[in-house]
């Protein structure tokens, strides 16, 4: 039996797809969302189990689809000068199931990098245009934090108060104070008080392995229950093979496999693709036709290009006193944006954030923690373990990654997923600017840890790039230099919208999820405002 045509078809139920669906459903649209994963069972998250740290190494809740290999996952081929580790999750809630929930915003300058610093391209929108959507997304998701940070424009009072800093946050904060450097308690997508029927955080930590109580704002516990109550339709275990088009070159819907492997087509007046910075590019490249031989929305040849990951580097300071960094919500207790804005005297363009972060438990420390320095085996093992655990404060560098066309997502000619669909192949190499930035940041992170009293510092060095998936269908005003316009509308296929990390024109130097949600809400309003065009 054919599917009934929807007003809007959304592909992907993560931070963007959930926000688009909820907003459009509120406004009165009939929305169907296709999600290749299933609902997670929170009482089965690794964080409920004594062996929780093993999930960082292997098993069905690992962050990498190549490691966990759940039936709903697709493999990702990773290559290039610095082959990346691609992390994502396929379930209702998408990668918000395992994100850290750090919730910073872009700065106004991030939207004007070409004008201010002469690099990359300006975004076609401004901070001011996005600001109300940031606020709306904060209210929908539930955030803990504190307004008043001098490194960011003023913002509305946070929905719930800040989470505890713990010994870790207060100790490293004193180090930044001693240096006269900026730091501030983080906004986190983890509520500190009961909010909209969800309980406040109980401070257990382990948030990246799924929050069983629903205090962490993953969209399966925020947007989706509200969207479903409003009448949205969410179809799980539906793996999309391609976006279909009609003879006029308009998006018609999507062909997908159900859980039994049967093919269906879901049609809609408008199609929104929100499958993350790798998945969205992959689906567009898979959707080739006579009208679109290079893939859908790819007349510019930029689909999959300009792939950005934030350059990361970890430094861990060892302190004589107990730090108990494993206690408390993982999130990010505090951050510094002292080095966020461009200062060309530093030898690179744009900037970075220092995140003052918690740690995992004893097993992760023994394995080498984030810096990849395992506790030595043999006679000295216990002595070294006693020095490190629980005595570590981690400072994580998150730098801005400038877009480079050669960094890209494409289709692998050989590797396929379990449905026979070509897998994405991600090619990535750090730019010289990123490497110079990471070197500078390692120096400042070290200074901060020393000022806080660290007696020894471990440095990861330049690591395999990972984490945020950005830029592969970027926004812009010029169809030759971008894939979508300021409203996330494809330059070529007028009823096709692309919104998620792929939309980012530049990466900025902050975790992207709050911006992805804000962009998605704005995109939804744009679709609704033009609804007479889709009839």
């Amino acid at each position, binding site marked *: 039996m054919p599917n009934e045509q929807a007003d809007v078809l959304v592909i992907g139920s993560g931070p963007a797809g959930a926000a688009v669906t909820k907003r459009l459903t509120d406004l009165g649209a009939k929305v169907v969302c296709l999600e290749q994963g299933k609902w997670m069972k929170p009482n089965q998250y690794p964080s*409920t189990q004594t062996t929780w740290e093993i999930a960082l*190494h292997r098993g069905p809740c690992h962050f990498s689809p190549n490691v966990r290999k759940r039936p709903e996952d697709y493999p990702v081929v990773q290559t290039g000068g610095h082959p990346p580790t691609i992390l994502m999750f396929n379930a209702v809630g998408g990668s918000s199931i395992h994100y850290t929930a750090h919730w910073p915003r872009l700065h106004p300058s991030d939207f*004007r990098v070409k004008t201010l610093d002469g690099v990359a391209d300006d975004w076609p929108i*401004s901070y001011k245009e996005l600001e109300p959507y940031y606020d709306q997304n904060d209210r929908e998701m539930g955030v803990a934090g504190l307004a008043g940070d001098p490194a960011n424009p003023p913002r509305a009072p946070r929905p719930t108060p800040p989470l505890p800093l713990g010994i870790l946050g207060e100790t490293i904060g004193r180090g930044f*104070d001693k240096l006269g450097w900026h730091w501030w308690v983080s906004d986190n997508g983890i509520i500190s008080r009961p909010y909209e029927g969800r309980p406040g955080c*109980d401070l*257990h930590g382990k948030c990246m392995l799924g929050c069983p109580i629903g205090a962490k704002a993953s969209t399966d516990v925020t947007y989706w229950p509200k969207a479903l109550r409003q009448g949205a339709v969410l179809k799980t275990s539906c793996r999309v093979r391609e976006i279909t088009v009609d003879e006029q070159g308009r998006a018609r819907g999507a062909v997908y496999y159900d859980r039994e492997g049967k093919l269906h087509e879901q049609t809609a007046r408008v199609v929104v693709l929100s499958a993350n910075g790798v998945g969205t590019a992959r689906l567009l490249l898979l959707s080739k036709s006579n009208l679109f031989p290079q893939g859908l929305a790819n007349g510019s040849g930029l689909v999959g290009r300009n792939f950005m990951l934030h350059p990361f580097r970890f430094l861990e300071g060892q302190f004589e006193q107990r730090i108990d960094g494993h*206690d408390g919500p993982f999130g990010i207790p505090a951050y510094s944006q002292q080095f966020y804005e461009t200062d060309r005297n530093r030898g690179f363009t744009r900037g970075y954030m220092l995140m003052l972060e918690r740690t995992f438990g004893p097993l992760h420390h023994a394995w080498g923690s984030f810096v990849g320095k395992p506790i030595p085996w*043999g006679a000295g093992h216990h002595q070294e373990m006693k020095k490190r655990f629980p005595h570590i404060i981690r400072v994580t560098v998150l730098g801005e990654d400038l877009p480079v066309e050669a960094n890209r997502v494409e289709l692998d000619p050989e590797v396929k997923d379990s449905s026979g669909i070509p897998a994405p192949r991600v090619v990535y190499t750090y730019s010289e600017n990123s490497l110079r930035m990471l070197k500078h940041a390692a120096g400042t992170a070290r200074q901060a840890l020393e000022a806080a009293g660290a007696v020894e510092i471990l440095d990861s060095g330049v690591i395999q790039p990972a984490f945020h998936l950005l830029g592969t269908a970027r926004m812009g005003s010029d169809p030759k230099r971008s894939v979508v316009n300021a409203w996330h509308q494809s330059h070529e296929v007028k009823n096709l919208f692309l919104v998620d990390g792929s939309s980012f024109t530049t990466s900025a130097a902050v975790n992207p999820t709050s911006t992805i949600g804000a962009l998605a809400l704005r995109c939804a309003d744009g679709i609704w405002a033009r609804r007479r065009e889709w009839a």
Partner: protein
Amino acid sequence: MTMSHKFTRRRFLETALAGSAVIGAKGEVEQTHALKPAAFTTLDPGQREALRAAMDEIIPSSDVMPAASAAGGLEYVERVCEQELDIRVDLQQVLNLLGKMSEAHFHMAFGRISSARRVEILTELETHSPEVFTRLRDLVYESYYTQPNVWKLIGYELHPTNGSGPHMMPFDDSVLAKVRKMPKLYREVNQG
């Protein structure tokens, strides 16, 4: 101890290859048998002895801390091996390799040689076959630091997310007093 049996890279490789040859000499069935999970439902006494000896060199006892096997590591590894094929195969390969190296150079099973000689063999394995050694070391660490009796001794409390969390002082606004006095750090831009 004198290093009369100190391995060169060449000797190490010869030993490793000799191990493969022995398996090969027993024929294809024997080789396949070694990789089949069904044939490895539990460790045989020799393998168990070798594993115990290896894990207790990787995490030996101290004044306060138990050695890996005394903390329950051996039983843990056996349980994991029953559940996970990849780990079972890896472990069997490394135990076979340790056995061959020990027999070749000390004419005794790995579990029977002295502690110093075990350390010598493990060090050579780490040097010449770091990936194999790392898998063994990480598994031993896993078997140790998932034990509640070990957690007590190192001052770790689990706080699983279906129970009560740790006590933490609420956020104290006064810690930001100095930062609040800083001038604006972000750049104003034309938002048009």
